[in-house]
Structure formats: structure tokens, C-alpha cells
């Protein structure tokens, strides 16, 4: 392997870091607090980096620590979209909540850089660095509404548990390093060439790595933090947490398992199958009793990660393709749902109970329609995009003969349909509560984009499927 520096391959990350710092300086010097212009500048930076990401050459940089390929580009673009939608969502919310400060978009940018590094990580050390950069910015974002007890509690809880997970991950990395003698994915793969000769210590290391990443993914049994953190964090931050970092964690998990340990599938697919089934079950069953919509979405996201992991458990190119498609549909649905939740505001007070949505169909038909689209899509009802996401993860599962996984998956999606339908029932069947405050254009924009993508996905699925296919091929190349 040619171990050149090739620093230009990381140009998107470098540019984004420079932009983040420049916006930070701009925000500090400019009075009064330029939160709006900083958000707009951040959006510009995200778009610029998106263009750079698509046009950057592919290859390995920093002596094998960093890799830029089709897979990384696909995931990075998705992360940038998720981050951009969240930044738009935060505009109005932060003003209303009295936390409109310029640090918010800057923190989103910094977290995004971490996620992009995660996507490109080609060594366990890069993996850890990216993950920590992402997480630290996210801890601060959770506690961003610092005068609010729930927000601070959520940040603290997330930090303590996140640190624990990072510790587990580091321990796993050290075991893997100790038994394989290297941290780079390519070399790890070569060192572990003979599946029969794998020591138990290395398997333990892999288990710890999976545990650490599953925590970031909020997959069962490492999901405990999710409902509390989702509920406590400011809603735009919850929206952010449920989109971009999930994509990054999935990207990391895919690359870390498929590239260095791909041929050791027999050692780890069992764990992923269990985690996947547990997540699907818990996500669908535990959500039934929720009355707070943010908690509901927390359990829903646990369930969705379970579905995404079905594709990984299969350990084939088609499986990874399924995961990649699933994440696209999930990001747009999730951003849209949170846009609708942010619109739940009556006389300036934000609302979070599901019953607050009562009769939304008469007071705000547009918002109710958008929410309905997201709920049906999350339940996996065609013709919405969520159906195609499920189709593409269950297809490889059936192909590889994972019938148990597939049957449990579809049955839990019926259970899940119950609580999604309940939200629709509250909006359409129940008596109207007083109308919500007028929606801000930014919220309508995100809800509209989400609903359009979700509804019209079925018209042209082919380009996305092709992109996901070529991205998945990279990992198996």
C-alpha cells in the first residue's frame, strides 16, 4: 500500500473546520448576537462542503488513516443533508426558546466534521477521534438550553453514559490492537486472514467495539439513554441526534465490521442479529405506552436502527445496500417528524404530549397531512419511502435465508404500525384542541421537503438504489 499523505482527500473536512472557526470568530466579534447570519453562513458552508465531497478524488490519505471512497461520499452527503435540515429547524425554535446564540450552528458544524471523519475512518484511531469530536459537540448541544433543568440533565446523562461507551470502545480497540498488532483496517484484515486462527481475545475486542458503537446507535441493549436524552434535549437537537449521528454511527459500524472483520462474519453476525431483533422488539413494544411524542420518537428510532441492522446482520453487499437506502429514507422521515413536533406550539409554549395533536386535521390540515405521511411511512406502508427502506433490508435477509430475522422484522412492524396509527388517530379522529401558533417558514420548509421526498420516493427510486449499490460495493471491493 502506498502510504502517501494525500491531504487533499480530506479537503471537505478541512474546509468545514475552517468555516466553523471563521463563523465562530465572526459570531464573537459581531454585536448583537448574529445567530441568524451565522446559521445562514453555516448552511452555505454545508452546501459548499457537499459539493466538495461529491467532487473530491477517491483514495487513501494520511498514511492509511483516512480513506475517501464512494461509500464515504454517500454517507457524508447524507450527513450534510441531515445537519442542514436541523440547522434550519433550529432557527425559529432557538428564538422562541430564548437560546438564539451563534454557538449553536458552530457546534452543529463541529459535530458534522466529527461525523465526516467517522465515515472516512480507516483506522481504529481515526474512528475514535471522529466519534469523540462528534459526541463532544453533541453533549454541549444537548445542554444548550442551559437554564432549563431538563436540558442540562439530558446533556449530563448523555455525557456520562457516552463517556462510558467511549471507554468500552477504547478497551475494545486496545484489545484488537493487542491481538492483531495494528490499527489500520487494511492491515487488520490482512493480519486476520485466517478465520480459524482468531484468538478469543480478539473476538472480545470486536464485541467491545460493537458495544461502543451500538451505544451511539442507541440499539438495544445500549439504548437506555435514548428516551431521556431525546425528551430533555431542545427539540432541534433531538432532531439532529436522530438523523446525522445515526447515519455516521451506521457508517462507522458498517466500515469497521465489513472491512477489517468482514471475513470473520461468523464471529459477529450473531451479535448483530440479536441486537437487531432486540431493537425491533423493544422499539415497537415500548413505544406503545408513551404519551410524550419525543419519547415515542426515541423508541421509534431504536426500532428503526433495528431494521437498519437487519441489513448489516446479513453481511452481504445487498445487505449493506439495504442499510444505505434505509438511512436515506429514515433521515428525511425523521427530520420531517421533528419539524412537525417543533410546530407544536401554543401561545409561545412548546408542547410535547401526543394528545396535544388532537384534531390537528381540522386546525392545520397541511401539518396533519405531513405528519400522516411520516407516520405511515415509518410504519412501512407503501407507497411511502419507508416501505422501500424495509423492502431493501428484508430482501437480502430473505436471500441469505435469515427467515427468523425477516419474520420477526415484519411482525414487529405491524406492532409498530399500531402506535404510528395512534398519532394519526389523535390528529384525525379526535376533537379539535385550540389551533397551534402560526408555523414559521423554516419549519414548513423542512416538513415540506421531508413529506415530498417521502411521498415521491417511489417515482424515481432507481438513481438512489444505484448510488447505494455502488457505495456498498466499495466495502466489498
Amino acid at each position, binding site marked *: 500500500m502506498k502510504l502517501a499523505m494525500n491531504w487533499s482527500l480530506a479537503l471537505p473536512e478541512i474546509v468545514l473546520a475552517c468555516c466553523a472557526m471563521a463563523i465562530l470568530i465572526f459570531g464573537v466579534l459581531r454585536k448583537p448576537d448574529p445567530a441568524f447570519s451565522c446559521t445562514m453562513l453555516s448552511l452555505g458552508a454545508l452546501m459548499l462542503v457537499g459539493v466538495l465531497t461529491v467532487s473530491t478524488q477517491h483514495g487513501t490519505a494520511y498514511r492509511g488513516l483516512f480513506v475517501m471512497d464512494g461509500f464515504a461520499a454517500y454517507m457524508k452527503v447524507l450527513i450534510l443533508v441531515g445537519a442542514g435540515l436541523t440547522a434550519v429547524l433550529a432557527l425559529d425554535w432557538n428564538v422562541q426558546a430564548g437560546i438564539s446564540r451563534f454557538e449553536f450552528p458552530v457546534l452543529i458544524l463541529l459535530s458534522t466534521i466529527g461525523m465526516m471523519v467517522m465515515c472516512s475512518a480507516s483506522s481504529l484511531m481515526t474512528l475514535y477521534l471522529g466519534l469523540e469530536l462528534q459526541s463532544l459537540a453533541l453533549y454541549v448541544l444537548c445542554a444548550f438550553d442551559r437554564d432549563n433543568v431538563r436540558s442540562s440533565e439530558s446533556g449530563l446523562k448523555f455525557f456520562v453514559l457516552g463517556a462510558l461507551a467511549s471507554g468500552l470502545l477504547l478497551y475494545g480497540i486496545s484489545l484488537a490492537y493487542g491481538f492483531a498488532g495494528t490499527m489500520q483496517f487494511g492491515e487488520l484484515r490482512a493480519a486476520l486472514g485466517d478465520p480459524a486462527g482468531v484468538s478469543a481475545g480478539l473476538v472480545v475486542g470486536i464485541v467491545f467495539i460493537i458495544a461502543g458503537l451500538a451505544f451511539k446507535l442507541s440499539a438495544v441493549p445500549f439504548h437506555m439513554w435514548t428516551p431521556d436524552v431525546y425528551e430533555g434535549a431542545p427539540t432541534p437537537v433531538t432532531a439532529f441526534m436522530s438523523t446525522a449521528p445515526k447515519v455516521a454511527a451506521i457508517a462507522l459500524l458498517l466500515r469497521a465490521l465489513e472491512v477489517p472483520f468482514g471475513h470473520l462474519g461468523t464471529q459477529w453476525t450473531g451479535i448483530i442479529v440479536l441486537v437487531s431483533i432486540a431493537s425491533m422488539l423493544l422499539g415497537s413494544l415500548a413505544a406503545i405506552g408513551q404519551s410524550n411524542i419525543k419519547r415515542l420518537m426515541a423508541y421509534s428510532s431504536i426500532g428503526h436502527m433495528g431494521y437498519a441492522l437487519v441489513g448489516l446482520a446479513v453481511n452481504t453487499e445487498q445487505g449493506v445496500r439495504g442499510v444505505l437506502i434505509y438511512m436515506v429514507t429514515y433521515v428525511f422521515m425523521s427530520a420531517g417528524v421533528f419539524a412537525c413536533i417543533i410546530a407544536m406550539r401554543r401561545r409561545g409554549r412548546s408542547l410535547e404530549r401526543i394528545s396535544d395533536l388532537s384534531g390537528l386535521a381540522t386546525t392545520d390540515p397541511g401539518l396533519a397531512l405531513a405528519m400522516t405521511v411520516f407516520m405511515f411511512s415509518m410504519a412501512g406502508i*407503501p407507497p411511502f419511502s419507508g416501505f422501500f427502506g424495509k423492502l431493501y433490508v428484508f430482501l437480502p435477509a430473505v436471500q441469505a435465508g435469515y427467515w427468523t430475522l425477516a419474520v420477526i422484522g415484519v411482525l414487529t412492524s405491524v406492532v409498530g404500525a399500531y402506535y404510528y396509527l395512534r398519532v394519526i388517530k389523535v390528529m384525525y379522529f379526535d376533537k379539535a384542541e385550540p389551533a397551534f401558533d402560526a408555523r414559521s417558514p423554516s419549519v414548513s420548509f423542512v416538513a415540506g421537503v421531508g413529506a415530498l421526498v417521502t411521498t415521491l420516493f417511489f417515482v424515481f427510486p*432507481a438513481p438512489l438504489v444505484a448510488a447505494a449499490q455502488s457505495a456498498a460495493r466499495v466495502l466489498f471491493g
Partner: protein
Amino acid sequence: MTNAAGFPILSLLTWLPVAGGLFIMTVRGTDAVIASNARWAALWTSLITFVLSLVLWVRFDQSNPGYQFQESLAWLPEFGVGYRMGVDGISVLFVLLSTALVPVCILASWDTIQTRVREYMLAFLVLETMMVGMFSAQDFVVFYMFFEGVLIPMFLIIGVWGGPRRVYASFKFFLYTLAGSILMLLALLAIWLYAGTTDLAVLMHTPFPARMQFWLFLAFFASFAVKVPMWPVHTWLPDAHVEAPTAGSVILAGVLLKMGAYGFLRFSVPMLPDASQSFAPLMYALGVVAVIYTSLVAFAQTDMKKLIAYSSVAHMGVVVIGIFTFNVQGIQGALFQMLSHGIVSAALFLCVGVIYDRIHTRDISRYGGLAGRMPAYALFFMLFTMASVGLPGTSGFVGEFLVLVGAFKVSLYLAYLGSFGMILGAVYMLYLYRRVVFGTLTRDDLRGILDLSPREVAIFAPLIGLTLWMGIYPTSFTAFFDATVSAMVQQHVAAVAGTKLAGIAP
């Protein structure tokens, strides 16, 4: 691509209602203006769709057993999935049934629906798109999308505009049918992976291994049996019917119930001949239980809608028996019975709707002696009652008769037990009719009841015409599916014989 119509008619029929729905969404103004515009726009959209669908009636080549009016667009080309549309002898009449019943439903809801008229009409137009799309799909994935998509508007129609227990009924309807159809999704994936395509025209001639057929049949059964609905998974139907608004019941009984039997006929029988053959006794048994048991249950009902709902289960039991006889008479009878039931049960629910609108109860004992006050209504109701019973000269007779002939070829006892349905049907339908229409007028509120309005006559007129036409000259309808059914039966016989030969060979 040959297309007898010269333009993509099936896509037009499928998507035109949604286009009308989008137009309704753009209407602005006061509530009254929106409601009135929504009603007229929905009526015109559905009427135009119906008139367009008559092109299928005229241009359909009855001697061709294969797919016609085909369309094909690349959708997911690398997976062998395409946006393929086409109708054959089995599906063409169901497309027409759907397009014909939707204007009837919209007219039937003209005055009774006063809240959220715009959303109601939108839901009906979306429902029409889903139904027509499902019957015209010539690709399994496209079929599945429409098949499940039907749930969305129907869920809202029952849940928003339904009766007191509408929430329970709508959830039960949705979750029951979703649980069934989601298992079909797995079967769909298995078929897709095995055959490499989801083009139904290809899949019809793809032999599947016997073991695979067994599991595929069970998965299909889970989905279609709930839809039919077959005993013992029929319990969602009475609830859904009772709570749904009149037009919702009409479309549910008229078209949605046909989706299950259509699925059996479209997928299970031609694609899984061996499994269908070996599961046939089970299907006969369930069909006979449905016929006898639900007829008895229907007899015990006090709610008119529930009675007709249970009678639908019984009639669909006859259809299932017909499909699994695997002979021309049985399958033709099943198809004819489906069409006839689509018209007759829809009309019966409309009959219930007429008096429900006036008195606001469906309790049979609250009525009596309507014949004096409502002669026209009594006449119409009687015609549909007779058609439901299967009186010769009405559409109901032809289907049941053919099914019994088909069943007779299979087994004397099957025909014997199946014919119980006709007797018991006469018992509960005549009982219903006598208690509602005849007798003495004792209730005060019934004394002032008005006979049918011109709008209601306009709703019933086409249904009466169809019922008599189908009963008196059934050939105009059977001619559509003659060729297709014969080809299907031949293929089935050949496939089963082939398997037997293979089993005998060393």
C-alpha cells in the same frame, strides 16, 4: 408495445382520480364553497374515469387469454421490477367494477357527509387510484404497493366519518389486514429472488419447487384469507362495516372484499398449482364453514349492516370454494359471484343507508311496514334481496349455480354442503326483508318517512340494470374471462399432472 386503446389507458385510469384529488386540495373559500366544489369535482372526476374505463369494455379482445392494454416503464431495471400495467380477462371487469362503484359512492355521500367534505372526497379518489392500480398491476411489486396502499384511505374513511366505535373498527381493520399482507411481502421477496423478476406474465409460467410452494401458499393465505375474509379471520369485517359510513361499506363490500379472492386467483392458483391442489381440502372446509356458520350468525343479528356483513362472508366462502375447484365452471362461477356480490352487496348497503339516513338506526326491530310508505324503496330492496338469495334471473343465481356445478365435479358432498348457503341465505335475507318492509307500521317516526329521492333513484338505477343484465344475459360478462379461465385451468391441470409424473418417475 401493442395497446388496443392507443394510449396508456390503465395509467390514466389509475392516476386520474389522484389528479382530481389534487385539484380539490387547491380549492379556496368558505367551508360551504369548498364542500360544494369538492363534491362536484369528485363526482366529475369519477364519472370521467368511469367513461374512460368503458374503453376497456369496448376494446378488450375477449379471445386473448393474456394481458392486454399493456404498459411498461423501467422502474428498478437492475432488479427486474418495472412499472408494468395490464389487464387480462380476470382483472378487466374488476377495474370496471371499481370505476363504476366510486361515482355511486360519491353520490351516496352527497348529503350524508357534511363534515370535512374535502378530505372525504380526497380519500375516496385516492382509494379509487389504489383499487384501479391494484387490479391493473402486472408487476408484483406494483400490485403490492397498491394492495397495501388501499389501507390508508379506508382507515381514514372508517375512522373519521364512521360510527361510535369507529376508532376500534378502523384499528382492527388496519392491523388485521396489515399483519396478513406483510407476510405476503416476504413471499414476494422470495419469489423475486427465485425468479429474478416480478413481471406477473413471467411469474405465471415459472415453476416453483414444491417445498417453496408450500410456504408461499401459506404466506399468501395469511394475506388473502384476511382480505376475503375467510372464517376464522373474518371478525374485522362486521366491525368495519357497522362503523363505516354508508359509502365506505359500499366500497368495502363492493371492491375491497374482492381483493382477497382476486389474489387467490391471480397468484395462488396459477403460480402455486401443487400447493393449491394439496391445500384445496382445507380451503373447501373453510369455505363450507364460512357458508354455513356465518349464515347462521347472520340470522342472529339485530343490526342490518352486521347481517349483510356476515352474509358477505358467506358469499365469499362460496367464491373460495369455486376458485379451488380448479375447473372452468367453478372458477368462472367464482368470478361471476365476485362481480355479482360486488354490485348486490353494495346495493344492499345503500338500501340500509337510505333508511338509516332517515331514522338514524340500523336496528331491525325498529322498522316494519315500510312497504306502504316507501313503495319504490320496497321494490328496489326486494330486487337486491332476491339477487343476494340467488333467484334465477338475477346476477346472484348465475355465480352460485356455476360454483355448485364446479363443486359437484369435485365432490358431491362439497356441492351439497355449499348449496346450504343458498338455503340459509334465503332464510336470513327474507327474514330481514319481511321484518323491515312488511308487517304493520307501528312506530310513529316511520309514519312520516319519505320514499326515495331522485338522487337516490339515480344511484340505484345503474345497479338494478346491472343486476338484471348479469342475471338475464350473463354471457356478456363471462365472455370476458372465458379464454383466460380456460387457459388457467389447462395450465393448472398440466402442472399438477407434471408433478404427479415426476413423483412416479424413479
